[in-house]
């Protein structure tokens, strides 16, 4: 099913709602003189006190892109989509589209394209606490029809038919949808707001102009200048929101979660200072890209140099590339600095936990200070890779097949550090064996491999001695913990196979081109394959949670695979340079 398949202009069914709307639209009360359109932007009509603004400049282009997209047919052909299209679940959507098309007098896509050819604009004004929707169209006739549709739908919803309450303001008629929401046509603008004073100020600005409009705001113009030709743009006045005391914890600068600090600490630090933020959404045939950008100054980094590097120069090492790669993350984080600065970055409770962990880890590392000596022996670049795991036919096949993962670090002084980490690895395996034996878990068998350029310390679970058709092979057999050293590189891997693959890769070289602070890539094919390896588990889960039979559960899980097959990868990139912090998320679609 697609929305087009639901269109009454493409099929014969028309609901009663269409009839009701048509009758309503024929009402003479709708007649209104049209004035000439103007070329002003929505930002010129909105007050400078707007704190959030969203603009969709060309909805018609997006509709056309989706309609002509090569994947459209694949989606239409999905059994699940066809089933939903003919089900009662989407009847309200079908009725809604039918009502819209009946009211607009043309198919919904055409109607939306013409109706919004001057853009859709949504704004929130802080002083009035009002939201305003502004739609600009070249067609006054379509705007009038749309007004009729909105009023009719509102009256249908309230079961209160008749002529909507009206009021005039400076020659424009405002209609009340209910006690709060009013709408008006201001020549070629459709205006809807929940606060009359905001609506009036927009009409005043339309008639009289205003040099203090949103368009005249330096913060707004500076922020939106970089938004370019995006399919959707949004602006947030962070400073005003922050000063108003909204979400104070977000700007407090301290977190309870160590992982959250490592991942997002720099972004949160930026939010505590930035005056504004801009989001843009770019849609093209290859995919969707969402970019969030804020200004950035190095003096805002105090305490978080571990995240940004000196002078915001942090540059992540290149992404690791392995076959059947599911996920790769590369980032600049100086973990030692973060550990030592923890009292400034985290709450008291988190620091208590960290202090305890520090004591235990220091003991584990033979009284060498964990933050300074151990983490300090590693350079800031961290590379993580996750790989779909394949299992040798001769080895135990775990019932739940997890992907393998590995982290690669660069050691500052390998000749000193290697020995330390090797010993800790051996201790750790011994510890796991003792605890595992107490819990009846299988045991790890340690081994050692030496190649020309690398040393591997491996630990492999001893295979079960007897085959039991009822016993599922435990999840443990996904793991063969391995520590590998290759020159300055240290690899900590969940599987020996992945470690072997990684030591075969070349060491990261110093790049003259500045890399992003953080980059992550998730591959949809490998994700689908990993899930497919565990399809039986997913089906069982579906049967238990939804009460489905096996066929129905299989069909529902297949929908998941069908959806994943539409995607190629997802990339997230954090860039900090040119006075800007930019977080980009890009979803790439398969080409067909």
């Amino acid at each position: 099913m697609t929305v087009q398949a639901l269109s009454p202009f493409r099929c014969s069914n028309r609901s009663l709602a269409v009839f009701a709307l048509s009758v309503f639209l024929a009402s003479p009360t709708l007649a209104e003189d049209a004035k000439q359109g103007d070329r002003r932007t929505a930002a010129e009509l909105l007050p400078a006190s707007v704190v959030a603004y969203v603009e969709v400049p060309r909805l018609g282009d997006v509709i056309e892109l989706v309609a002509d997209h090569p994947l459209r047919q694949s989606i239409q052909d999905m059994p699940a989509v066809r089933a939903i299209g003919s089900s009662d679940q989407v009847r309200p959507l079908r009725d809604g589209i039918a009502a819209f098309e009946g009211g607009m007098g043309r198919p919904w896509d055409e109607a939306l394209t013409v109706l919004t050819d001057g853009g859709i604009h949504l704004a929130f004004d802080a002083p009035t606490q009002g939201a305003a929707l502004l739609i600009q169209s070249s067609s006054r006739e379509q705007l009038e029809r749309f007004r009729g549709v909105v009023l009719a739908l509102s009256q249908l919803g309230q079961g209160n038919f008749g002529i909507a309450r009206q009021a005039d303001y400076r020659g424009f008629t405002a209609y009340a949808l209910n006690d709060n929401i009013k709408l008006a046509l201001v020549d070629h603008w459709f205006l809807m707001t929940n606060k009359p004073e905001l609506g009036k100020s927009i009409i005043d600005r339309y008639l009289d102009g205003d040099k203090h409009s949103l368009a005249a705001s330096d913060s707004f113009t500076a922020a939106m200048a970089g938004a370019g030709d995006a399919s959707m743009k949004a602006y947030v006045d962070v400073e005003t929101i922050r000063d108003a005391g909204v979400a104070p914890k977000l700007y407090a600068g301290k977190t309870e979660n160590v992982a959250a600090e490592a991942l997002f600490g720099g972004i949160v630090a930026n939010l505590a200072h930035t005056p504004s933020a801009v989001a843009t959404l770019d849609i093209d045939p290859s995919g969707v890209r969402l970019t969030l950008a804020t200004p950035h100054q190095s003096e805002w980094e105090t305490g978080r140099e571990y995240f940004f590097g000196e002078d915001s120069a942090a540059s992540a090492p290149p992404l690791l590339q392995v076959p059947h790669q599911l996920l790769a993350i590369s980032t600049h984080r100086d973990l030692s600095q973060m550990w030592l600065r923890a009292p400034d970055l985290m709450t008291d409770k988190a620091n208590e936990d960290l202090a305890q962990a520090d004591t235990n880890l220091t003991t584990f590392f033979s009284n060498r200070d964990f933050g300074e000596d151990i983490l300090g022996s590693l350079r800031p670049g961290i590379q993580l890779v996750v790989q779909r795991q394949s299992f040798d036919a001769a080895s135990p096949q775990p019932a739940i097949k997890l992907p393998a993962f590995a982290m690669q670090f660069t050691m500052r002084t390998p000749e000193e550090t290697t020995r330390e980490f090797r010993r800790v690895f051996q201790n750790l395996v011994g510890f796991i064996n003792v605890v595992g034996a107490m819990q009846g878990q299988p045991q790890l068998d340690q081994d050692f491999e030496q190649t020309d350029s690398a040393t591997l310390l491996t630990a492999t679970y001893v295979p079960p001695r007897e085959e039991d058709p009822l016993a599922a092979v435990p999840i443990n057999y996904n793991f063969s913990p391995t520590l590998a050293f290759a020159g300055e590189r240290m690899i900590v891997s969940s599987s020996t196979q992945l470690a072997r693959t990684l030591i075969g890769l070349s060491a990261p070289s110093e790049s003259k081109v500045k890399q992003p602070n953080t980059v992550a890539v998730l591959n949809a094919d490998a994700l689908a394959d990993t899930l497919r390896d565990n399809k039986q588990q997913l089906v069982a889960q579906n049967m238990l949670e939804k009460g489905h039979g096996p066929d129905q559960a299989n069909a529902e899980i297949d929908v998941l695979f069908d959806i994943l097959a539409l995607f190629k990868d997802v990339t997230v990139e954090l860039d900090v340079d040119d006075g800007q912090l930019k977080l980009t998320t890009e979803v790439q679609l398969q080409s067909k």
Partner: protein
Amino acid sequence: MAVDTKIDPGWAWQPFTPSDTQPWDRSLAAHLYRRAGFGADLQLLDEAVAKSPHDVVDELIAINLETSDFRAVADSLAQTLLAGGDPMKLSAAWVYRLLFTPAQLLEKTTLFWHGHFATGADKVKDAAMMWRQNQLLRRHALGDFQALTQAIAKDPAMLIYLDSTSNRKSHPNENFARELMELFCLGEGHYSETDVVELARCFTGWEIRRDRFRKNRYQHDAGEKSILGQRGAFDGEQAVAIVVGRDDMPRFICRKLARYFLADELELTDDLIEIPATTMRENNLQIAPVLKQMLSSNLFYSSHARARKIKSPVELVVGMLRGLNGTTNSQLVARGLRDIGQGLFYPPNVKGWDGGRAWINSSTVLGRANLFEAILSNEDTKFEGQSLTQSLADHGIHDVDHAIDHFERCLMAVPINPATRRQLTSQFDSLGKDHEKTYRRLLHAVCSLPEFQLA
């Protein structure tokens, strides 16, 4: 609920013959399915009414094995969940089986043996072991009690639960020996402390190693023992055979079966119980003939048995869903059952569930209502694969009055009290805007009625 009237054993176990005063109708068929299984939808009831009660019982007994298709699905579901190693998830797999099994009597009897040979996953902790025991109980559920007891005596989960993983000749472990006589076969007063000590010697050398049963011949006491009046150098198997072979055993088992299938508080005199006990003896300790006799009897269809049981949590929830062809989130049901006192794989102690009035107290009454609330507000709860509104509409039901009639027909062992019905009708006077929500609230109200707690 106790019935004082003395029951004539001769009449009680005679096969029931429908009459003008007590015709074989939906109501009696529903009674049979509530007891021999967990409930039936209208279609199954109508199919049953078209046959004789004896034929229906014969069919229920005959399905003493699940169909291979269903067994394959249910087993593979459980097998898949074993990978996670969580017995609670396994409990959800059993709920799935209870909801969809075509072999209702087999599953109901498996649940009976789970309470009889009670073993708790909270102590055993190993999901695979619990699953193996569950399969064992299902395999023998309607079969030979001797074989079942011999198998359970060597079941790793049972021996771990009774702290009997190691039994040396220098220190015989009396736990299993005592429970074999007291809880599993004979009952209190039918053995002496000496019997316990002597019986324990027979099981020396029986132990669990690497999750498997084995006999350690070096630790077996091969000397002569005296058990329940018999002397000899008995080993474990011979000891079980001696206990199971006691004349008291069929009476003990038949009493428990009668309380489970017929009535919670029936006065089961020796005279009354001797007849099914004899049936058990005459059929080489097979369970199926005993159940056939009980479920076909005058007693079963009489006022002594009808609506004379308080539904267990499993009967309560699975019964509602099976009665209305409902499906839901099995994990939610599994957790809910545990909350209201009948966690599958989690019996409270080695005595199993007491049943009867013990199911109901101020906490579980509220818990029962809350569990129905959770199930009926869950978006995965469907009836005949659709909304309750649509399911009722398929039966030609479009208003509250008819919905109450339908729920009464499908779910209740006794009619809804007229005053309660008036109250329900006025409470849910109109369906309002959201029919689905109103019907579900109505069903919740019906399932929370005292009448609905009776089976």
